[in-house]
């Protein structure tokens, strides 16, 4: 597998987009931590930035990369290589590039200004979000043959996870406000990795005290070790399931 992985890596690193992304994350995170007077405020601002930028860049970059490597994949397929190997190499290659970009651009700055479990959790969430949205991008790219449709699908996925899902949840909250749905909301949050990451980090900050009864229920769950590990487990599942689906589909795909 490392036979092709090496060539995929060289190809991605040469792409200026990744360099630009690293630089952007670096400038943003450095300026946020220098502007805010406490690091806890800095973490909160960083959280919002990460939850917007990381999924968007991971999705769009990976989708475009997959379409641009159409010829590369075809060339590899005519060689004595398993489809499994090719797909895994592309996935791991993208993960390494985007993961490194995040670590170098934002991860190091976060850990310098907030050297604690909270900082570590934020970095981990950022890395996992990079993995999740790369896997989703692979799925979008393998499902649609047309480049424009594939990128459109990626943007729709991003809109859904960052905006539309929250809208639906808010709507449900208002409609069902007479019923005890707090526990149910924990389950619902598992269906959106971005929300899950947000709640996970918010519950480690003091602001959770301002969120009323739901905040208390959430704190009861997400504040405990088992809640945290269950959430991280769910995030990992969010990487594995879309990727496995894309792999299964790629094995049967005609090129």
């Amino acid at each position, binding site marked *: 597998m490392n*036979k092709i992985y090496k060539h995929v890596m060289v190809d991605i690193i040469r792409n200026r987009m990744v360099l630009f992304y690293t630089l952007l994350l670096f400038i943003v995170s450095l300026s946020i931590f220098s502007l805010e007077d406490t690091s806890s405020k800095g973490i909160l601002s960083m959280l919002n930035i990460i939850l917007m930028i990381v999924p968007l860049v991971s999705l769009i970059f990976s989708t475009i990369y997959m379409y641009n490597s159409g010829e590369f994949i075809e060339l590899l397929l005519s060689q004595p290589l398993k489809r499994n190997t090719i797909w895994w190499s592309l996935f791991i290659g993208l993960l390494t590039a985007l993961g490194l970009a995040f670590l170098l651009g934002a991860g190091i700055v976060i850990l310098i200004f907030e050297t604690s479990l909270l900082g570590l959790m934020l970095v981990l969430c950022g890395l996992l979000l990079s993995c999740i949205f790369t896997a989703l991008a692979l799925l979008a790219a393998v499902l649609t043959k047309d480049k424009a449709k594939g990128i459109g699908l990626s943007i729709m996925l991003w809109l859904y996870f960052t905006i539309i899902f929250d809208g639906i949840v808010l709507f449900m909250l208002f409609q069902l406000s007479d019923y005890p749905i707090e526990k149910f909301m924990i389950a619902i949050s598992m269906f959106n990795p971005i929300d899950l990451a947000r709640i996970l980090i918010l519950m480690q900050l003091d602001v959770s005290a301002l969120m009323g009864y739901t905040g208390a229920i959430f704190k009861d769950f997400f504040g405990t070790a088992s809640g945290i590990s269950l959430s991280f487990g769910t995030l990992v599942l969010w990487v594995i399931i879309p990727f496995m689906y894309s792999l299964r589909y790629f094995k049967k795909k005609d090129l």
Partner: protein
Amino acid sequence: MIITEHLHKRFGSQQVLRDVHITCRPGACIALIGPNGSGKTTLIKSILQMVIPDRGKIIFQGDDITGQCEYRAKIGFMPQMTRYPENMTIGEVISMMMDIRKDQKNRDEELLEQYQLKDIYHKRMGTLSGGMRQKVGACLAFLFQPDVFILDEPTAGLDPLSTEILKQKIIKEKSKGKTTIITSHVLSELDEMISEVIYMHEGQVLFQKSMEDLKLATQEVKLSKMIAKMIA
């Protein structure tokens, strides 16, 4: 030795392959011809498993290829134009192929030298003309001394001199007892090389005949005339 049995493939509502049977013996040089959209490329891609057939099986040197990948080490494939990664240089593409097939030490660099590709190793694939890409494709197909050559429109875009070099190479490899499958629309080029003809039409094999049989049946010398008589 390649045998396909009852091959069927459908893209959406279009039936591209219908019950395709072909047999490619060792040492045969087969011309795969037919009008546009008759399923030639799909058949070739099925042999390489780039397209997965709906039904039927393909047997390569005695083994069913379903789910296999090692057999492709014995195939030299030259795809139709422009299917190469744009941002890699010629040198990188060739060294990557060598890296993937590390265990195949016996390399044939004759075409690399005849086409003088080593002088332009630093050029990117995206900046090359169609003909130059064809040359790279031809070199890659012959590089690892495979048993079987599958050449999809090999001479499209090549200048006459390079076409002649490629033809001589194919004839040379044929004399070594290797199997070759060529698709082409330029029938006059095929005359000296081929020993068998497979004619496809709308996803079906209309006939598979050796050149001698065709000559006897049609009393013609030129391949284009033979084909015209056969399908009339």
